[in-house]
């Protein structure tokens, strides 16, 4: 399959406020994991992938009035899409541009901040509607004057991977000409306390696929891609193509992945089929690899089921950014496209010993090699699994 063209990207995460800084961090093993400084929380020593900008910093850079009602997720999304706009040679997005955005928590940051004040304080009531996750997406669309269809997806940690899949499908079927796809999620006390109660937060930097891994770090990010139909390209630079995708439910547990990685297995197979590729055609796997015991084992089992003894070079980039939940699929899609463009594989940080069950070892230092195809995995609570395949445009 030729695949759908990606003609623009924009990103903000704890390892960079634009593509150049992000690439520099990835190439130089600079992680963005630190103690929380912007988020006020009782878990002061729990490492997170935090973007060191307050909401007012972000609002100022984006020229928003000080009394705006943007949630942090909306601010991050606008920030990332601003870069996408600059990089894609538009002054304004054409009016028919659609937006599909994934989020797991939407405007929860504003809800938790003001929930108990809504009764008394008139000035915070502007945030009441912010708890609706669609509100964040609508705000973003309004900022850029997008006239196309605006859709919000919420399938936990695979939200933005599903947004990319849906966008690619709608372009491929001729329903859309141009669509911005991706996702945004911010750090909140809501999620930090929740993941803490699930006992899957590491108190150190996360170590995906390591035998002694002890949990994930939460992160925040926004990442967006511009997808365009081939007849709109006009010789534009193409960053890569989305040539395969698959989605399935693991049907095992509300939050845990199955022992044999059935959901992961199915979606990787489906994505390969869609792309008309065989397992040996994959140059690099950008794994979901959260750093939890359960995910990394289940994903490793799925990889060995598909690739046998020839698992391609793989890494989880969550050691850099933490787990950015609904945004993870989108920022890792961008890392995958950077890998294609630069013919290099970004390392899996903090890895020491392989897990005994599978013996798999991820790429641990920046590796220069030809990269033609990248498989990117995203698995979410509720059993929602998605795999995407990107390939060079040639």
């Amino acid at each position, binding site marked *: 399959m030729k695949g759908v063209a990606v003609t623009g990207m924009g990103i903000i995460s704890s390892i960079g406020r634009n593509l150049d800084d992000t690439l520099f961090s990835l190439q130089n093993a600079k992680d963005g994991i630190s103690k929380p400084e912007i988020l006020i929380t009782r878990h002061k020593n729990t490492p997170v992938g935090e973007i060191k900008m307050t909401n007012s910093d972000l609002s100022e850079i984006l020229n928003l009035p000080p009394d705006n009602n943007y949630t942090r997720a909306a601010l991050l999304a606008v920030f990332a899409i601003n870069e996408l706009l600059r990089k894609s040679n538009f002054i304004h997005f054409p009016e028919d541009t659609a937006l599909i955005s994934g989020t797991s928590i*939407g405007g929860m940051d504003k809800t*938790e901040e003001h929930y108990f004040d809504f009764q008394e304080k008139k000035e915070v009531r502007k945030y009441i509607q912010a708890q609706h996750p669609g509100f964040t997406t609508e705000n973003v669309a309004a900022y850029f004057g997008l006239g196309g269809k605006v859709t919000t997806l919420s399938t936990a940690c695979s939200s933005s991977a599903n947004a990319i899949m849906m966008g690619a*499908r*709608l372009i491929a079927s001729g329903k859309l000409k141009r669509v911005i796809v991706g996702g945004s999620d911010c750090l909140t006390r809501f999620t930090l306390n929740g993941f803490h109660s699930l006992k899957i937060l590491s108190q150190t930097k996360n170590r995906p696929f390591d035998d002694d891994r002890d949990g994930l770090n939460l992160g925040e990010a926004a990442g967006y891609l511009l997808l365009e139909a081939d007849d709109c390209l006009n010789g534009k630079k193409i960053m890569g193509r989305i040539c395969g995708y698959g989605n399935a*439910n*693991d049907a095992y547990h*509300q939050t845990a992945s199955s022992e044999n990685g*059935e*959901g992961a297995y199915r979606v990787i197979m489906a994505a390969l089929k869609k792309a008309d590729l065989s397992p040996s055609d994959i140059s690099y796997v950008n794994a979901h690899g959260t750093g939890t015991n359960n995910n990394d084992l289940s994903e490793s089992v799925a990889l060995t089921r598909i690739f046998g003894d020839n698992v391609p070079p793989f890494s989880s980039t969550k050691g850099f950014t933490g787990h950015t939940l609904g945004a993870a699929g989108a920022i890792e899609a961008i890392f995958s496209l950077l890998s294609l463009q630069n013919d290099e594989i970004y390392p899996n940080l903090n890895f020491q010993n392989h897990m005994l069950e599978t013996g798999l070892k991820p790429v641990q230092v920046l590796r220069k090699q030809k990269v033609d195809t990248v498989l990117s995995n995203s698995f979410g609570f*509720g059993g929602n699994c998605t795999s995407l395949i990107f390939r060079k445009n040639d």
Partner: protein
Amino acid sequence: MSEVLYIKNSVLIRDAKVYQNGRLYYEDTKSPDISIFLKNLYKSEKIRYSKYFKMDDLSKLGFIGTEILFGGNIENKETALVFGNAASCLETDRYYSETMEEFPSPSLFVYTLPNIMLGEISIRHQLRSENIFFISEKFDSSLFLEYSKSLFNQGKTDNVLCGWVDLQNNDYDVFLWEIARSGKTYLNEEELKNIYLPTHE
């Protein structure tokens, strides 16, 4: 190019009433309270699935609606799930938030994602099919229609279970329908609205 599709069956749940294919199927005249309604409905359906009582109300609504729609068994394991609502999982978000300041509840936190409902249905019926959850301000028939059609057109599936399962301030609005290649009612926006609107104020 696009083939003719049908609405095979539908279920509506509102105001302590359940309608199956347009006919009143169950009514709870005594209990306006959602949790009692959901418990009584479970009992009347004679389902034995103790995990039901661990679910949040949103998941229970989607779960039990699906049980009624399919008579307790989804035979086609490739049935895709296309769901959506307006309020995400706001009710559970609130319950969880209330526990957060002291002892955050893991079992409530788990349900602070609307797509957990899809996981519950998939676990119950062992579906490893494609599933998606949309959030839109109000019921958007075109969104469901377009997405479902694209699944059929790409040969992904022979069956789609669509669900609008919304819950806000104990007020619930559930509309589930099965799309197939055969049936009595043509699948189009008008028919969807015809089924969805009448009992909706």
